[in-house]
């Protein structure tokens, strides 16, 4: 059986330098966005999803675990942050903290349950768990059911940054995205990340070498869920609402699609994929359900002909790791 990702290229100092150059380029480009007149709301939304896809990619690309329920972290963190901000009236930094803590707690519980099975079963279990959570949120009073939590106050981050100004909010979201991205990048290049990759390649062998693979997988799951939650908390400030769509399985599918389009197991793929898919939804918003059909077609086309994704193909062409 061939693995999902084919980055057999070793991580060399050369590769890491390339990646840091691309990262710096990406940071500068994104930092210049407010000067160009591009609609900042679109880019902020894309950044939140990019971080979410990067967190998802940590599990599938480096741990070989395909989670079909990552929307539950997005939604849970969103609901926790939104409730804290609106009902308790806390400051933005506390609101983010509450959301991230909620997602982290959820990832501990769901991770403990879902890593008991591998491969295809893991995907089905995460999907079922997120559906369980969907029904709980549908009935729980604090989520306001179908209406969701609306009109969330944005407030002042650390008492100085006025988040209701789009440019300020943009740089805060960008800082959050870059911070989360670097954390994931550091993780996959750490000894922990190397063990994770070895589990993906051959779990039995990793066990025989003395690694407690379940603990590594659980830790990766918690890290991924928590960072996904952070993306969900940031998204609350951008969208100013928290609703059931964020917990629905279609959202989990979109996260998978973004990562697949960009390139599973590549460092920058999920970011590119998120921008492509969000842009597509933006431009095709008038076509109703055809957007779903197009997403389905992209899924099929990617799996059949384009398994490396955009960044994966570029990296393969230049024989570089990206």
């Amino acid at each position, binding site marked *: *059986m*061939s*693995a*999902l990702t084919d980055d057999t290229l070793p991580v060399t100092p050369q590769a890491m330098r390339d990646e840091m150059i691309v990262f710096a380029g990406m940071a500068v480009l994104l930092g210049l966005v407010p000067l160009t007149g591009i609609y900042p709301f679109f880019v902020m939304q894309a950044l939140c999803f990019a971080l979410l896809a990067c967190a998802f990619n940590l599990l*599938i690309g480096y741990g070989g675990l*395909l989670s*079909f329920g990552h929307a539950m972290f997005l939604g849970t963190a969103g609901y926790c942050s939104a409730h804290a901000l609106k009902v308790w009236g806390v400051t933005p930094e506390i609101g983010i903290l509450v959301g991230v803590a909620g997602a982290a707690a959820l990832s501990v519980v769901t991770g403990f*349950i*879902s890593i*008991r*099975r*591998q*491969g*295809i*079963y893991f*995907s*089905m*279990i995460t*999907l*079922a*768990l997120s*559906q*369980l959570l969907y*029904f*709980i949120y*549908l*009935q729980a009073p604090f989520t306001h059911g179908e209406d969701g939590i609306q009109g969330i106050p944005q407030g002042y981050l650390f008492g100085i940054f006025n988040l209701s100004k789009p440019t300020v909010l943009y740089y805060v979201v960008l800082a959050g995205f870059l911070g989360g991205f670097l954390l994931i990048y550091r993780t996959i290049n750490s000894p922990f990340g190397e063990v994770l990759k070895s589990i993906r390649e051959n779990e039995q062998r990793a066990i025989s070498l003395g690694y407690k693979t379940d603990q590594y997988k659980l830790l990766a799951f918690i890290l991924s869920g928590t960072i996904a939650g952070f993306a969900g908390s940031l998204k609350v400030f951008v969208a100013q609402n928290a609703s059931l769509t964020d917990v629905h*399985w279609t959202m989990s*599918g979109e996260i*998978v699609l973004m990562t*697949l389009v960009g390139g599973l197991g590549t460092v920058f793929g999920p970011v590119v994929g998120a921008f492509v898919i969000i842009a597509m939804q933006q431009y095709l918003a008038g076509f*109703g*359900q*055809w*957007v*779903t*059909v197009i*997403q*389905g*077609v*992209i*899924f*099929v086309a*990617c*799996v*059949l002909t384009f*398994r490396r994704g955009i960044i994966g193909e570029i990296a393969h062409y230049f024989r570089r790791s990206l």
Partner: protein
Amino acid sequence: MQALYAQLLVGLINGSFYALLSLGLAVIFGMLNIINFAHGALYMMGAFCAYFLLHLTGIGYWWALIIAPIVVGIFGMILERTMLQWLAGLDHLYGLLLTFGIALIVQGVFQNYFGSSGLPYAIPDYPEVGGFRGLQGGMNLGFMFLPIYRGWVVVFSLVVCLATWFLIEKTRLGANLRAATENPTLVRAFGINVPRMITLTYGLGVGLAALAGVLSAPINQVRPLMGADLIIVVFAVVVIGGMGSIMGSIITGFALGVIEGLTKYFYPEASNTVVFVLMVLVLLVKPTGLTGRAA
């Protein structure tokens, strides 16, 4: 007590659908090593096929029970020949992603033309036997009133499930199939056309889903998203039961339907979630599933 029996019956009916769908998933997984995410969409196509047959050509329920599974089964076999077969040898997860994409396409197209609301499909009113008009009406069993159509769905599904079990476990064809699941290369060496067998197996699994769709049309109405949420519950059923045994899938399907029905009576708030909660409990106690082999 009336309400309890009524919920038990609803549970048995849902259990029939769980059993038919998880059976198909298990058969397909055995041969193709693919979890068919499109199963819910194909179940929906079965129901729509019955609807089209009735409203466009006037062909009624009884013929639809035969024609719809064949039509949808052929559609499935075309999918297998044109797409799924190219995934052989790749990671299992690609099959999940591909069939998820197929499900999005099929459901999206139907949603475009039919929206999200349900289309009615009448319970057949022929043939007239005794005092009954087809499967309409009901009979008084003394302790409860049994709508005939609902009783029919449970009995017929059970018969189909057992027939599938018999086909796979007790016939020569089934023996070949099980052998090809274990070791396709060796079975090919015996001169059996394994790729054709894989295609037919996918057609069989898909046909079972379409049959469940036809059965559910008069009860649940015909909706483009009727299979979308159902398939996630069926995944939980499959995780609980494991996919190693045909009989295991059938029993787990019916049992979970009944448990769900009982929950609707005793604690209705949890009726949506009880199957998922049971899945969590089973995973904590016996991670391999009740009948499953380790995957």
